[in-house]
């Protein structure tokens, strides 16, 4: 029963979704909307579950003094401070409105910290480009040249470097062509492949043939 019930629910909901896409009329539309409403409620609760799990994992890390455990203290403190300030110190207003203590922390602590973490990517991309973009063979050289053109063509420096060329042959035009023709064709091929895979996997899940999402096997 532990496996049969989820498989049956999946099959019924899957068939309702599939049929309602082609016939969005009563009673399928009502069933479809009910299923989506239930999904959104579960998704909202999963956030709470995620937070509780995050706290549990990090408290365990602190208690067992696992590697980098001091960072877990920072995480727990950050979570507590944002929650307490948001719930208890918003001066009677919505905690996200301008002028509240939560907004102050969001604007001047969370915002710059988050942006800083993401900006580290620039350094890793630069380092990875240096090591990866080598003309080892024809394919690698094509990738190298395309990356080079797009990198320069997507910023104003590309215009200045190629402004002596005839109109429509500037680096920016070449970058646009790469993005709009070979890149787009490759992406579309990948997307069609993924879509076919999704369709076949979905059918297998609805029919109960694919059960790995239940765990085990």
């Amino acid at each position, binding site marked *: 029963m532990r496996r049969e019930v989820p498989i049956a629910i999946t099959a019924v909901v899957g068939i309702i979704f599939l049929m309602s896409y082609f016939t969005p009329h009563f009673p399928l539309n009502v069933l479809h909307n009910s299923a*989506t409403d239930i999904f959104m409620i579960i*998704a909202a609760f999963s956030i709470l579950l995620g937070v509780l799990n995050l706290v549990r994992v990090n408290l365990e890390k602190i208690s067992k003094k696992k590697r980098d455990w001091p960072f877990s203290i920072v995480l727990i403190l950050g979570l507590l401070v944002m929650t307490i300030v948001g719930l208890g110190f918003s001066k009677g207003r*919505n905690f996200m409105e301008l002028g509240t203590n939560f*907004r102050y922390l969001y604007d001047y602590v969370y*915002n710059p910290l988050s942006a800083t*973490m993401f900006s580290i990517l620039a350094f890793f991309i630069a380092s990875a480009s*240096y090591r990866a973009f080598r003309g080892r063979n024809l394919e690698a050289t094509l990738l190298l040249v395309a990356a080079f053109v797009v*990198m320069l063509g997507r910023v104003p420096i590309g215009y200045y470097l190629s402004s002596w060329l005839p109109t429509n042959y500037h680096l920016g035009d070449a970058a646009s062509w790469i993005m709009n023709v070979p890149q787009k064709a490759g992406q579309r091929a990948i997307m069609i492949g993924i879509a076919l895979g999704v369709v076949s996997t979905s059918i297998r899940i609805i029919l109960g043939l694919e059960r790995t999402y239940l765990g085990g096997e």
Partner: protein
Amino acid sequence: MNFFEKLLVIDRRVIFLFVAVAIAVPLFFKVNLKVDITPEVRKVYDIMENLPEGSKVLVAFDYDPGSMPELQPMAESFIRHCIRKKLKMIIMGLWPQGFIQANQALEKVLKEEEFKDVKLEEGVDWVNLGYAAGNEVVIERMGSDISAVFAADYRGMKLGNLPLMKGVKNFSNIDFIYNLSAGYPGTQEWVQFAVDKFGAKLAAGNTAVQAPLIYPFYPKQLLGVLGGMKGAAEYEVLMGIPATGVKYMFSQSVAHGVVCFFVIIGNLAFFLTRGKRKSGGQK
């Protein structure tokens, strides 16, 4: 080990230092570079220009502060355009932080010279619906009934009490959707559900990393695309208000130039030391 062999195994911290200098130093200089306009950005601008006054525009902020440097200038430009054209903005987010980013952008724009005297009334000229959990399912449900997902705005005001939301049942009552996205859920999901299923008119602003994944949808499913900070700068130029995007173009140009320089010298070193590697001198 000669100079070129040393180049091949250069410490990555040296590259980090060059990139840091290339990004940071230009920020202290005001250099107005020519920003050429791509058709995909002009298309977004033209659509907005052709919307009649009072049209309802849904702006989905699907990003967090991590992508702020690229997407916030796009958001600000788009909001400027909405205010200038007297369009009604319905703001929401599929990312928890998205709608706060929207408030930040709106607050900043309303302090600017051109807009500081503009009086926008919340609930009448703009509304922030907040965040809804459920990713693409949220979009799909909004296609049939927005109030089923957002019963109230982020302050808790019932949708029925907001003049702007009167008569707005689903996507068919919205004139244009603009999605600012940094990943999942984002533009791809808006295309799949809002456009393909409900026929909404959609354009998007994406991070430079995500833009190549979005291009296949342009120009049929996606009417226009702003890619990365360059896209933001292009929109600012079209608006005639050069702001953060244009300002950062110099920094980004120098940074890209430095990366290209390293790629060139890396390849130069690679080819000049190829003979030695082949003879077994070095792996």
